């Protein structure tokens, strides 16, 4: 009896979960649908559900010069993430496996920079970039995004480094292994998934960043969010085109996120609790 009601309740819950999920993600589904519409079918009352699909919007977006923005986004995201790892991995090591004495001070400092609202630094950054001739330059974004993601990255990777069993390191040392060998053979295999998860978070935050991009770049170094700003004035007129642009702009990070969602879960929980 109880088993039966449980099963019934279970399938009702499953149906409910599906409905909630579909409703929640509906704006995204609608974006995908709209991106395949002709402009006449995009903004109608009532909404159009049956229509002849077209790829017209995607070709229009590409004609409007979307690719350079996409290339900028990819370049900035990859390089700033590499810079974060280059600086962050040693720092995380120094705060976990071979800890310096002021570990909690250093960690507190990294975290506190995250509390600093980015608006508080935008004016000097603008003036400095202008004086250095770095306005509308991808390298300015690379450096700033690395600064933006580094604190969180150090903090996350430290948690992963702490999971390396110290006995393993000591055993390797006793066997006469030098530090580089220990790093490469013992520590790296354990922390690699954590580093991947950290990199993924950095990729998402760099790809989607808006404030620095809008204020410090324009036609030359603009990233995909900057391309989308072009649609702010054409509201209500080009919904299908906007949907196609939104889809193309989000697709890379959507695919990466979908494939690596298990890493994402682990990365977000930061291995902080065992």
């Amino acid at each position, binding site marked *: 009896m109880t088993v039966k009601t449980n099963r019934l309740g279970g399938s009702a819950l499953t149906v409910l979960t599906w409905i909630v999920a579909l409703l929640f993600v509906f704006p995204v589904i609608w974006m995908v649908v709209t991106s395949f519409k002709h402009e006449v079918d995009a903004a109608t009352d009532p909404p159009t559900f049956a229509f002849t699909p077209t790829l017209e919007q995607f070709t229009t977006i590409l004609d409007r010069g979307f690719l350079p923005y996409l290339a900028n986004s990819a370049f900035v995201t990859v390089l700033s993430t590499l810079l974060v790892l280059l600086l962050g991995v040693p720092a995380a090591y120094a705060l976990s496996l071979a*800890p310096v004495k002021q570990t909690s001070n250093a960690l507190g400092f990294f975290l506190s920079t995250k509390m600093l609202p980015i608006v508080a630094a935008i004016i000097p950054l603008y003036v400095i970039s202008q004086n250095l001739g770095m306005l509308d330059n991808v390298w300015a974004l690379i450096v700033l995004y690395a600064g933006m993601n580094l604190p969180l990255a150090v903090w996350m990777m430290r948690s992963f480094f702490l999971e390396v069993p110290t006995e393993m390191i000591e055993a390797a040392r006793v066997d006469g292994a030098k530090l580089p060998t220990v790093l490469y053979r013992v520590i790296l295999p354990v922390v690699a998934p954590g580093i991947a998860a950290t990199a993924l978070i950095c990729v998402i935050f760099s790809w989607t960043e808006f404030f620095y991009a809008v204020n410090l770049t324009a036609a030359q170094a603009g990233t995909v969010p900057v391309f989308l700003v072009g649609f702010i004035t054409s509201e209500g007129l080009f919904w299908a085109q906007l949907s196609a642009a939104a889809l193309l702009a989000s697709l890379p990070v959507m695919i990466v996120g979908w494939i690596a969602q298990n890493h994402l879960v682990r990365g977000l929980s930061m291995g902080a609790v065992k």
Partner: protein
Amino acid sequence: MTAVVEAPPSPEPPSTRTRAQQRSSAWKRRAPLLPALLFTIAVTQVPFLVTVFYSFQSWNMVRPGSQHFVGFDNYVDVFTDSVFLGALGNTVTITVVCVLVAMLLGLGLALLLDRQFLGRGIVRTLLITPFLILPAAGALLWKTTMFDPTYGLLNWAFGIEVEWLSDYPLAAVMTQIVWQWTPFMMLLILAGLQAQSREVLEAAQVDGAGRWRTFVSITLPQLSRYLQLAVLLGAIYIVNSFDAIYLMTQGGPGTASTNLPYYIYQRAFEGFDVGQSSAMGVVVVALTLIVATFALRLMFRAFDVSRGVK
């Protein structure tokens, strides 16, 4: 800080040679940390110090040579500026409401996902998607396809005619932000739920605890660290919300949905008033630091950062 740096007192004063060795080994340990530390200081702290300097200047970018020292004038202006105070209020409202609502929705969704059912992987993939959509894209899509008074899906679905963005601008912006951040909260809370020990849960059931009782007495306390982390990280990002306001309402109508990041942006890049916008930036940092001091303390307790320090 110095108290931490001092070596613990040793019974015998070490000879100079070992002390030198100790010092060099301390530097060896610090070496991997230094590049990250110096980089972070250069990219985040130095610009802020410059902001502090600018905040004592009267300087309009479109009038070259107008820069001069004015003491605390900018700060006086900031605190008597009703738009600034309104923006401060909006920032607090957006942050508190969005963090709480996103966390509750995230908790609900995580609980729904924390069981075996047909298509669980697909449902989770669907649910995390709003977090992976470009926030700029999400904001523009909500503004047009959802909130548009004539062609928007919301008015059509509910059979109403509401001018969402002009009648309820703050609520509209918050809806988009909550939609964006709920998956993030859900993922964190789901990780917490899945870290629960099955044996404890089963033991509670054997002892006759109902579902609700088990949730309140076992699951929630176990989740509290994850919830704290979710609140802290969510607040850090949501307090800086800019995309949604810039793209959906432009802070309007009037200044009804202007928050601090957007107002500072307006003063700096539309009003070209470096001095005043810098003073606002400094005030925002001061306020954030006050709140963050409490949050940080909370977090250090929650995550026991001293772990791993030998």
